[in-house]
């Protein structure tokens, strides 16, 4: 190729100009790929969270119920249809304990389409069996054919796996009746207690390093230590938690052990964000306060911290979002158990959202992949809310000093 670099009148080399343009465009590629991956991920998850299924009821006919009835009423009718007597049904539904067991074993959920028409309720029992499961596209395509071939006791449904009952139900051996409710509570418990540890330590350390010990031996040691801690893989924190909290201290695989482990994990992040927030406060404010005769404590806590508060709160929210998604360390500290009941105290067994998702993915049945997809959507939604909140706070309290 004859490449003559003949600059034009302005000394601009046209060849190089071309390279420049191509280069600039090529550089955007990774961003597009990353965004594309994100889109695929969301799309796949969303798509997978719907399926068309043929389900055979364990007891009774595969009935559907109209929209508008209460869950209790629907269950009552279904129990009757299954062959129980009026008295038995009335008794079971009146007694709170019995009712709770019934609702645990049966899931009343709204299906977007059924063999009897759109938006009807079905009752899924723990022992109901999935006969066939199709992706959205295929299922809708073959809808009429499937409907025509329904056997006795079977029902045809367009099932949105992410629905209101999914949010409140406990996990279950059967994907059809599984829910993320318990995991949500577990996350709330573990996260709250973890922040109870991480916030004081994190902000305290940040204040110490930014306001009291700006230089010196101790501050250097603390900083190096923090930097190393930040680089430690989260699973190693899990090992620490396992050896120290679960075993040595005998706390066992409980919420307490999990919060302590997660709390330690969250400290470095909070320190970084809090320090940034403190550093953003102009020195002139401190000087003004000192000139008025404030002690260091008064300067820090009456002027600096209040000024840095929005930044610190934002930092805490972002750290919380990070912690919510942590699965590895908690797997080691006991969240791996099959936990079908709500935690009642810090010493309860528990599970958290990302771990629950992991457990579902690890199951063999393909529907658990759908349940996992639904769970992922819940988690991403939760994280989005947190990020939006942080963003809102950051913009609302943007100061012009």
């Amino acid at each position, binding site marked *: 190729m004859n490449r003559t670099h003949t600059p034009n009148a302005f000394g601009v080399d046209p060849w190089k100009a071309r390279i420049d343009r191509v280069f600039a465009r090529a550089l955007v590629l990774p961003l597009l790929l990353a965004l594309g991956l994100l889109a695929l991920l969301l799309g796949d998850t969303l798509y997978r969270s719907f399926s068309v299924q043929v389900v055979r009821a364990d007891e009774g006919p595969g009935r559907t119920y109209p929209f508008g009835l209460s869950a209790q009423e629907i269950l009552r009718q279904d129990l009757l249809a299954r062959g129980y007597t009026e008295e038995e049904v009335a008794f079971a539904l009146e007694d709170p304990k019995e009712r709770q067991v019934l609702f645990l074993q049966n899931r009343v959920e709204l299906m977007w389409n059924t063999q009897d028409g759109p938006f009807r309720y079905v009752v899924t029992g723990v022992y109901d069996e999935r006969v066939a499961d199709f992706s959205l596209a295929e299922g809708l395509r073959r809808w009429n054919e499937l409907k025509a071939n329904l056997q006795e006791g079977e029902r045809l449904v367009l099932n949105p796996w992410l629905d209101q009952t999914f949010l409140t139900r406990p996990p279950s051996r059967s994907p059809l009746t599984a829910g993320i409710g318990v995991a949500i509570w577990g996350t709330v418990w573990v996260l709250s207690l973890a922040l109870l540890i991480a916030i004081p330590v994190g902000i305290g350390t940040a204040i110490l390093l930014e306001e009291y010990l700006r*230089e010196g031996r101790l501050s250097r040691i603390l900083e190096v230590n923090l930097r190393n801690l930040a680089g430690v893989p989260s699973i190693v924190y899990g090992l620490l938690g396992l050896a120290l909290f679960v075993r040595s201290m005998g706390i066992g695989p409980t919420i307490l052990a999990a919060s302590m482990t997660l709390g330690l994990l969250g400290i470095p992040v909070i320190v970084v964000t809090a320090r940034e927030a403190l550093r953003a406060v*102009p020195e*002139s*404010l401190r*000087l*003004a*306060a*000192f*000139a*008025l*005769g*404030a*002690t260091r404590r*008064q300067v820090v806590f*009456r*002027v600096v911290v*209040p*000024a840095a508060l929005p930044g610190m709160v934002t930092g805490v929210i972002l750290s919380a979002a990070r912690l919510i998604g942590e699965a590895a360390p908690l797997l080691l500290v006991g969240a791996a158990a099959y936990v079908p009941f709500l935690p009642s105290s810090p010493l309860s067994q528990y599970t958290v959202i990302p771990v629950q998702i992991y457990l579902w993915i690890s199951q063999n049945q393909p529907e658990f992949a759908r349940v996992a997809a639904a769970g992922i959507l819940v988690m991403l939604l939760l994280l989005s809310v947190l990020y939006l909140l942080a963003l809102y706070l950051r913009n609302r309290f943007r*100061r*012009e*000093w």
Partner: protein
Amino acid sequence: MSLEMLKDHETVRTESVSETEALVDVRHLNLWYGPKQALFNISVRFPKNKVTAIIGPSGCGKSTLLRSLNRMNDLVPGVRVEGEVRYEGVNIYDPRVDPVAVRRHIGMVFQKPNPFPKTIFENVAFGLRLMGVKGSELEDRVVEALKRAALWNEVQDRFKKESGLRLSGGQQQRLCIARAIAVEPPLLLMDEPTSALDPIATQAIEDLILELKERYTVVIVTHNMQQAARVSDRTLFMHLGVLVEEGPTDLLFTKPKHPYTEAYITGRFG
């Protein structure tokens, strides 16, 4: 006049301030930032209820001297001070003295207005709260301070709710002045208080300073000689960390005794 000569310089004084007239008595003050000496053997008295200006080219140490009067220099790591600064009879650099206590008796206003991101009320109340003042007395004193700082009329309808940052530059500086005088400090230090302000705001502040000297003693650092001439009763001229000359303002400006003073005043350097 080289640095060598400066070190042994004897300040040229005109109509020196007597001990009884002085609120602040600086005696042989030397200051080092690390290895570098910034103030050389400064001795001077600041008279009560008068405005004293400190002028000189940039880097001459005027801000450093000002900050030595309320031990603000202590906040700079590696600073070393020798000599005495006697304030109301006590050497504030005595090892038994807590710098924080010193600062509660002395007010300071900075070059760039720096109100706290709080309400106007809370800004002015800050120093008072440090002293433990509460309730209606607190409110009364805040209002009083705002009035004396000539800000009351402009903010009386909103001073409790509005943030101090919403005020204009000139108003913010008056807020900082109100904040500083709320605790009734006998001494008020001002470090180039109008250099960040427009001419109208500057004028307002200068008028304010003239009023303030009735109740307070003011020391003001300024790089604007005309300002010094307008507001001050006495002027100190510094150069390279040395107090070259001091005396009544009108005399210093019309009949400067030291050649360097004259050179600076006539604009030949600085």
